[in-house]
């Protein structure tokens, strides 16, 4: 079976600029808008917090001039040598510029979970059991990855 390319002119929907046959579900639009504003906000936070760190405006846990001593180490050795906490321990240290920069990254990492929480009610309303389960499982996987519970005994 060949992928079907439809002949003839298509009537474009005024709102989306797409033909009427190409329906984009409302939850998909909501997810897209979340990513649009969320990702650029996250990148802006990264830029600002990083500038605060390297310009010395916020105090640094490891001074930028000293960081060269650590960036050649394996991450586990760096955690030990610099006494940096595992998992979410960095949240207690956001007063330092180097850890404040992680806030933007954590936000980028949280966006997908928030997006999936937008999708879940929509699939439940449609009584789409399989995709509701897939979305719920993905949220579980991402939350587990983010929790820091995995691999805590590894070092």
């Amino acid at each position, binding site marked *: 079976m060949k992928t079907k390319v439809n002949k003839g002119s298509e009537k474009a929907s005024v709102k989306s600029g797409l033909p009427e046959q190409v329906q984009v579900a409302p939850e998909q639009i909501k997810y897209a808008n979340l990513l649009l504003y969320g*990702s650029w906000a996250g990148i802006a936070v990264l830029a600002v917090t990083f500038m605060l760190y390297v310009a010395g405006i916020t105090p640094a846990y490891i001074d930028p001039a000293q960081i060269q001593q650590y960036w050649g180490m394996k991450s586990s050795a*760096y955690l030990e040598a610099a006494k940096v906490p595992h998992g979410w321990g960095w949240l207690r240290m956001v007063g330092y510029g180097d850890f404040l920069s992680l806030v933007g990254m954590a936000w*980028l990492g949280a966006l997908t979970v928030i997006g999936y929480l937008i999708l879940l009610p929509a699939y439940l309303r449609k009584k789409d059991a*399989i995709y509701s389960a897939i979305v719920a499982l993905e949220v579980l996987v991402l939350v587990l990855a983010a929790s820091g519970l995995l691999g805590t005994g590894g070092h």
Partner: protein
Amino acid sequence: MLDLIIGGASSFAASVAASPAAGNISASVQAASGNPGMPWWIWPLLLFAVTFVMGIIAVLAGVGGGVLFVPIVGSFFPFHLDFVRGAGLVVALAGALAAGPGLLKANLANLRLALPVALIASTFSIVGAFLGLALPTNITQTALGITITLIALLFIFSKNSEYPSVGGRDALSKKLGIGGTYYEASAGKTVDWTVWRTPQGFLMFTFIGTVAGMFGLGAGWANVPVLNLLMGAPLKIAVGSSKFLLSITDTSAAWIYINQGAVMPIIAVPSVLGIMLGSLVGVRLLAGAKPKAVRYLVIIMLLFAGLRSLLKGLGIWG
């Protein structure tokens, strides 16, 4: 401001295949690497410059920035591979998240295709992340070198298909209702599509997820051939869905790297900013670029970085 940057970068675009800018930056990195007394700020600045060029090249060549970032920065900068892979995931994640809205709104990222695949890939990317962080560095570096060399070969030999032939739909794709319609603007037509060989495709994503997490690579180089050539999704759907599902695969692996202390802001942030800014410039330059020449440049860069990583892992070079 973007116009100013584009103006400055236009000479680069005109001779991108010869890549004098990339050559100069590479020479600066080499010089700085050989001088441990360099002031600290040189490194984030060089990283920003390198990733800015990388962002332009990635867009012009139609590849993800992550696949260039890890082998090149891992081979030529003094950072441990753990931090490079952690930064690579944040770079790929930021790029995928920023590309997501346009793809979702145009229905080029298809949720019925991407969601099940993302669940598999993101689960296995966690396994890959732990594997990569647990293995001795020389083994990870060697395996990265082999993987990057194979990716370069894949770029040489893989031929995508715009509208692949799809045989009978399998039971799994029917059960999941994978398929849809998208608008092909170049032809002014809508295209109906579906997929087949779904179980085989899903199986491949266990491997892709593991590799993505292990090496911190965005996995578009593998997603697209599997979705397009194996499962039969039209090229635009494969590319769009691949980019979207990277935002999910890379999220789970990135969290593991963050929690294990393998994301250092001084490496990750200039890289994200450089590559995002470079991508914006690259998109503006796309119309006047010679994609084939840029693609050859990328293949040469990957082969060189792959070989360098392999030799570094084996203790032969660096």
